């Protein structure tokens, strides 16, 4: 029985450690949870990629340095979660104007549907949601490579839903003035997003 007890303890110890590792110390049980946790603990610098905005102009993320940002990933024909994200952004936009911080913050909607979302689609999308370009802009990465770099850094997974659309993890990503992703929040957590932005000023 002694050997069995020793074996059981050893197994529990080793596999317990594996489990501990695999859940970041019982703090992150989902990939999404892990992403949020790791961003908090270690801000991630954004890649220097070329984007095209709704007026067809080119820009890069470092162009926006000096401003804190909130980033969302969307595709313009999304009938579901992107709509909620858009509402969330609209709320943020209103509050930021009221706080008088509009010139020090950027709201960016990044489309990952390169096949369909050209400047025109983006412009329609922006208009429908009240993104007039002063505070809130809609963009798409220049090419697949740029897109992949962005998705990897942000930890966003996009999979086709089999009906012409996509399934993707939706969140509000806060980027600090040095261009580092520092926090990720859920739809509905706008107050926390605003608090994080104010801390940046």
């Amino acid at each position, binding site marked *: *029985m002694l*050997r*069995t*007890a020793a*074996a*059981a303890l050893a*197994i*529990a110890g080793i*596999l*317990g450690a*594996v*489990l501990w590792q*695999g*859940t970041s110390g019982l703090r*992150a*049980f*989902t*990939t*999404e*949870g*892990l992403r949020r946790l790791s961003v908090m603990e270690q801000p991630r610098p954004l890649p220097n990629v070329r984007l095209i905005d709704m007026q067809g102009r080119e820009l890069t993320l470092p162009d926006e340095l000096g401003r804190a940002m909130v980033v969302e990933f969307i595709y313009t024909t999304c009938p579901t979660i992107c709509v909620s994200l858009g509402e969330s952004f609209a709320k943020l936009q209103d509050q930021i104007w009221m706080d008088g911080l509009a010139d020090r913050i950027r709201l960016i909607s990044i489309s990952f549907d390169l096949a369909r979302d050209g400047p025109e689609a983006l412009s329609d999308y922006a208009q429908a949601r009240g993104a007039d370009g002063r505070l809130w802009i809609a963009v798409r990465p220049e090419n697949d490579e740029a897109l992949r770099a962005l998705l990897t850094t942000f930890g966003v*997974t996009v*999979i086709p*839903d089999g009906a012409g659309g996509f*399934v993707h*993890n939706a969140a509000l990503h806060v980027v600090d003035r040095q261009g580092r992703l520092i926090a990720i929040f*859920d739809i509905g957590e706008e107050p926390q997003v605003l608090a994080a932005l104010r801390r940046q000023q």
Partner: protein
Amino acid sequence: MKKSGATAGFQAAAGAGVIVALMLPFSRGRLEATLVGHVLVQMPLLVLAGWLLGSALAEKLERVMEQWNRFGVAGFTFAIFVMLFWMVPRSVDTAIAHTGYEIFKFAGLPCAGAALALSFPRTIPLLAGALKAHFVSMLAVLAWLYTAAPVRLCNSYLASDQKMLGAGTALFACAFAIYWALGPLFGLPKPQPTIASGAAAAREAPGGARI
């Protein structure tokens, strides 16, 4: 309870066959395309394959098990931790993204199955029953977790998949509950010992009535 070599050989072949079949790119792709396929088909099949391999090896490992796995305690510990690990949604996601995790899955789950096969026959009914009851409860809890989750738990899968996984897990829970209830309820009556001889038998049987 001697098993003929042929049975053991057949079990080993079947177990290995199942694992190989699951490793083929075709079946891997198919099964891992949906949560239900991944979690409720592929993973249980891996455990089952391990169970077959474990049963085949039971006689060879008899001496080792007698020393290191009394009452199946070590084996159960192993199987519980491995299964706990694969109940975490993040592990499921990562298995798709990282080959290392995928290999760990294809190795770990069969080992867990083998551990179960090597442990159940040597344990006492009390421990076996408690484990089964907790397993059914845990499945019910998991079914609820997947159904009630306010967000997608796995980034690689659709939300509708998650609901299906919840429903499927609930079915699994019911199926196991019924399957395990049938034995005690209607199982073939064993030869009925008188009280006195029953007591003696209980004392003799390894892992019988005594702890």
